[in-house]
């Protein structure tokens, strides 16, 4: 458990107080959605999965012991949801790698609205070309600001491994950027 405020929110959630649910949604839904967006690379799917994450979280509230922060807990559920969805999609074999959008499908792009500078746009494009585990580590650490310890809980990996995975993902992103610029 992180701090007193979080302990109070968790206690209020367990008492079934609506304002606590609203606080958790308001604080964390953006982060969960973004994480899922960079994993799935598809806005509508990220939106659906975000809803599933919160539904699952409310259902699992009794089993949440509060050893991790609510943010870490929600991201772990999100990651598991994504892995499950990826498995389902894999069985159908209808989508390309990592739940990415099928080629040629027009989708709304919430990231494009934000990416004001060309540099950020390039980084974002390079990020999307990376493998799922690289996108997951970079999104968790640099975009969502989770520590290596928190990431270890989310990804169910040892802390040292997560640190190494993040460094490797950053190197791969750098490589993507330089390679991409070579082709331009």
């Amino acid at each position, binding site marked *: 458990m992180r701090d007193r405020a979080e302990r109070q929110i968790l206690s209020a*959630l367990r008492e*079934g107080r609506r304002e606590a649910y609203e606080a958790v*949604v*308001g604080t964390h839904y953006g982060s969960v959605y*973004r994480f899922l967006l960079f994993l799935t690379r598809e806005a509508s799917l990220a*939106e659906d999965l975000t809803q599933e994450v919160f539904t699952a979280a409310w259902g699992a509230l009794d089993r949440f012991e509060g050893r991790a922060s609510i943010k870490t807990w929600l991201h772990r559920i999100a990651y598991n949801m994504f892995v499950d969805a990826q498995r389902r999609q894999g069985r159908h074999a209808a989508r390309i790698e990592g739940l990415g959008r099928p080629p040629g499908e027009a989708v709304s792009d919430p990231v494009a609205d934000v*990416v004001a500078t060309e540099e950020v746009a390039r980084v*974002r494009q390079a990020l999307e070309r990376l493998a799922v585990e690289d996108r997951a580590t970079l999104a968790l650490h640099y975009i*969502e600001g989770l520590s290596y310890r928190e990431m270890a809980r989310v990804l169910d990996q040892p802390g040292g491994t997560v640190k190494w995975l993040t460094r490797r993902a950053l190197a791969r*992103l750098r490589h993507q950027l330089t390679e991409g610029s070579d082709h331009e």
Partner: protein
Amino acid sequence: MNDRRQADSGTIPKEWLEARLRALKGVEPPGRLKDKLLSGVPASGADHGGFPPASHRFRVLRYVGVAAAILILASLAVPRLTFRSGPPRIIADINDRSGSSALVDHNHPRPADINVYDHNAVP
């Protein structure tokens, strides 16, 4: 532009890359998503704020269930025990020496019966 040149030349500084990644935090979810999530808040959170949490309710329900099961088992077991230990039924005993027998079994194989009540016995 200097940063751009660095990126293009393959010497992308870590700080440059991290800063651009952090800029992606500005991606906002669609506005309707929050409404959907709030509408999905469980009923215990929305309509029954004063109710005890689900875990407490389940615990109480479990205790009530166990108590009900014990009562049902007891109500089934007690009558049986009572019949077994209660007063014996009054039955006609052919060998009762009080002479108040109400029934006579003519086919009873025991010699005592034959001697006393068997009308078919050979004299």
